[in-house]
């Protein structure tokens, strides 16, 4: 566009035009055109997503975007989910809340993932933001139900309160009863991860008066007997998470439940099903044909009951189950759920050596054969073969997320005893849009060569117990042009690959390496050479000053940042560089 034309548009017209631009990527491009557009864009940006809370700081964000209404933040690295990040590492959201309380009084939405949230923070949110509407906390911790009570009590226009797999100290207080009787704005309420009981009368009244309620996910403490009353008050529900799904179904309850469920004609998503007893399952048959998402991953139902259920779910897009349903259960999925896009199969007995049921690679293969739209897979099993992976790759070229966890590390192809390099190579080669990949089984450096070469769209790679030398890591870091997150544990990758590809790290969000062969000296060098990276060494044994440079670090977490080293590190975390081992003073 010629410069002359750009100047002839008044700013408020540009601003109005920019309100139609939603995607962050587009807004970024817009902001690079010229100074004027940069200014207009930054004043009109309402939603900000920060994939690593330490990549920026509250001050920097506020300075650039003064009128934000919605903020999403992610904190701890993904491996924190598996206890690899010690408690107290960081990612506390309180400083953000304090800063925004002053700068963004009109903040409406806050979405946090893997962050530490405190009751004080929640209280501040509830008081500082008069128009606060949406609170989504995924895998967060550090708060109690008292904090939730404050949110319930003070946020007049609350639309969404969504707690996804958080660790909440349940004080068994009456947080739910803190919703005032005047509250009618709720659209989404998810407290499935809480332990304690809520007041059932309060819950029923709340559900009854919130006529726009679309999502309701109960916790385990809500017994099945209470469900019919709730459903009758909310027939408009789209997403239901049941509580405990187990009871001796006397006839009256059974027909009550069935009637209530049938009344929910908009239901698309079902989850919960804790402690499910098979006799209770028929009560959801009426809605099966309509649902697109089914989460049975906490339900230990056996194959026959599962098959009866799933064969009615013809419109399923998303299915989460336990391996308890066995290969034949998945075969039933393959024949009934032709629109399936996402499948997750979780292990039911992780500490149990003897498996008295059969879930193998065949289950996944049959789903890939029967479900042509399959895009996203998370699969835990005990055996795999290259042949199976070839088949899956061939059947599912549109795969975008493929996470395979063969439970025993270093397990080879059970048919040939070879490594699984070729199989995973086929996946990356054929699934040209693959964005996320998790590897397992016996793997050499070769698989990384395939990944580096073919993984053009790969954004996130998770590696464990794989590879043989630095070459493996080098293949990935020197290839994979779209790589954003790389997490590695227990692999023989060391300094050379890391240092040779140091520049790559600045194009990525983060790199995690634990129990690998990276030395402290290399970390220091990396930190020194790359000032825009924070190179964190997380180590229990003592300060880097006391350890020799050739000693291996336990955990390395390197991420790019414009905010410089952080100052809220606990005593076992150091940001390292050659000159000074910077620690909070």
């Amino acid at each position, binding site marked *: 566009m010629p410069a002359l034309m750009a100047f002839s548009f008044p700013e408020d017209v540009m601003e109005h035009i920019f309100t139609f631009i939603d995607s962050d990527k587009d807004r970024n491009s817009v902001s*690079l055109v010229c100074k004027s557009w940069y200014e207009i864009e930054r004043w009109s940006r309402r939603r900000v997503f920060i994939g690593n809370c330490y990549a920026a700081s509250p001050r920097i*964000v506020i300075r650039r975007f003064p009128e934000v209404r919605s903020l999403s933040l992610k904190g701890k690295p993904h491996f924190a989910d598996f206890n690899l990040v010690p408690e107290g590492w960081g990612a506390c959201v309180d400083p953000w809340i304090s800063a925004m309380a002053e700068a963004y009084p009109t903040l409406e939405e806050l979405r946090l993932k893997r962050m530490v949230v405190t009751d004080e923070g929640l209280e501040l949110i509830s008081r500082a933001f008069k128009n606060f509407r949406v609170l989504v906390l995924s895998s967060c911790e550090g708060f109690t139900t008292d904090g939730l009570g404050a949110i319930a009590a003070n946020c007049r226009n609350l639309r969404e309160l969504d707690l996804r797999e958080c660790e909440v100290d349940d004080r068994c207080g009456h947080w739910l009863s803190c919703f005032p009787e005047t509250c009618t704005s709720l659209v989404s309420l998810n407290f499935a991860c809480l332990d304690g009981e809520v007041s059932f009368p309060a819950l029923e009244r709340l559900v009854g008066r919130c006529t726009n309620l679309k999502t309701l996910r109960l916790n385990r403490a809500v017994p099945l007997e209470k469900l019919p009353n709730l459903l009758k008050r909310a027939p408009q529900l789209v997403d239901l998470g049941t509580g405990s799904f187990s009871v001796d179904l006397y006839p009256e309850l059974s027909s009550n439940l069935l009637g209530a469920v049938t009344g929910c004609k908009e239901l698309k998503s079902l989850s919960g099903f804790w402690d499910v007893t098979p006799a209770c399952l028929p009560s959801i048959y009426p809605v099966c044909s309509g649902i697109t998402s089914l989460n049975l991953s906490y339900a*230990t139902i056996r194959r026959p009951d599962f098959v009866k259920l799933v064969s009615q779910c013809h419109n399923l897009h998303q299915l989460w189950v336990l391996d308890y349903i066995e290969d034949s259960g998945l075969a039933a999925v393959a024949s009934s759920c032709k629109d399936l896009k996402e499948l997750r199969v979780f292990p039911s007995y992780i*500490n149990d050596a003897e498996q008295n049921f059969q879930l193998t690679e065949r289950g996944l293969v049959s789903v890939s054969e029967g479900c042509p739209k399959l895009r996203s897979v998370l699969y835990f099993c005990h055996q795999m073969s290259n042949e199976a992976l070839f088949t899956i790759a061939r059947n599912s070229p549109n795969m975008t997320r493929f996470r395979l966890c063969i439970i025993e590390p270093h397990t080879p192809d059970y048919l040939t005893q070879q490594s699984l390099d070729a199989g995973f190579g086929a996946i990356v080669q054929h699934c040209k849009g693959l964005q996320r990949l998790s590897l397992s089984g*016996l793997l050499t450096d070769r698989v990384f060569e395939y990944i580096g070469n073919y993984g053009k769209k790969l954004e996130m790679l998770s590696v464990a117990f794989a590879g043989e030398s630095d070459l493996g890591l080098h293949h990935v870091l020197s290839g994979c042009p779209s790589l954003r997150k790389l997490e590695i544990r227990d692999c023989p990758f060391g300094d050379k690959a890391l240092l040779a590809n140091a520049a790559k790290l600045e194009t990525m969000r983060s790199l995690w390496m634990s129990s690998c062969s990276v030395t402290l000296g290399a970390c220091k060098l990396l930190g020194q050479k790359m000032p825009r990276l924070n190179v964190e060494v997380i180590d229990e044994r003592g300060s880097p000053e006391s350890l020799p440079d050739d000693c291996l670090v336990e955990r390395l977490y390197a991420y790019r940042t414009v905010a410089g080293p952080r100052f809220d590190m606990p005593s076992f975390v150091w940001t390292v560089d050659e000159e000074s081992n910077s620690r909070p003073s």
Partner: protein
Amino acid sequence: MTPPPLSVVEEGQGQGNVSLVPSPASLESRNGSGLKERNYMGLSDCSSVDSTAISSLSEENKSSMNLKATELTLGLPGSRLPDWDGSNQGKLDEKPLFPLLPSKDSAAASSVKNVVSGNKRGFSDAMDGFSEVKNAPFTEGNWMFTGTGSDTESAQPGSQGKFTLNAGVNSTISSRTTSLNLGVKSVSGNGHSGVDSAMLNEIVPSKGHERPGGGNGNGNGNGNQPAAKAQVVGWPPIRSYRKNTLATTSKNNDEVDGKPGSGALFVKVSMDGAPYLRKVDLRAYTTYQDLSSALEKMFSCFTIGQCGSHGAPGRESLSESKLRDLLHGSEFVLTYEDKDGDWMLVGDVPWDMFIDSCKRLRIMKGSDAIGLAPRAMEKSRSRN
């Protein structure tokens, strides 16, 4: 192959063995205009990759790296790569499913410079040796990887061209044709007979046990676990939330063979004066003795800190006994918070009852725990 961590010391790593050239050419080309987007806010992904540009660039790279010899061949195992055992070829009679360019057997002489990894050389010496490498463009790959390594690798038959492992000897590198391409190709070829798998499998338990400081999370020192299936922290990758939930699910469900040992029950353990918490799986133990020895191992590093010495691995045995003394003496006491929110001394109730009611553990200073004793007695009396 993964050596035990200590042997890596010999290599003198981290002394600038490799070049650090910022902004490699291949990355620049993505933003064709030359504008450098800084995505630190995660606001956009640099995924607007011009695929043709990338593939042509990578081909360019390949030729300069002499990687033609390593064009990937994704045939079925044994079908194309002559070095593989091919012992299962009989089973696989399909044509290779994903043939690419044929593999070349020739070990192309490469323009690989002689990058040596010194054995505790001075920093400037090391840098001088690599000055050529340093100035070479990043993508040309003029450096070599000398893998970290154990000696067992060299015992492999037909290891010519295999990625050699350098136990700190400079001169050996130039004599072997260990160029990048060769290493890549033949590694897979020689790779995976049972020897390698066995070697790799050995590594797993050692990783689990040798970690200094006793690791975190699960107590690896539990005698009940069979040695081959040592519990590795955070593996399989399942969230504690799910593990805990499934544990109680299996207990409650009659249909399922709810063995008490199945599932897991993670609780937080804190120690007064220790920098951070850990989590333990209570179901991994069957007696108080098991639990307490696991905790001793887990927290021994903190006691080391308190004694003012550095936590070197070799001193573990000394500190364990010292910690045991501390724990059994009056200095530290193991307590737990039960479902009612009260803090109790560990050991008063039968183990199963303890598991049912324990929400979290705390290793308290003995002096703080004095007040607990009467309450604990009261409670156990009211229970019985």
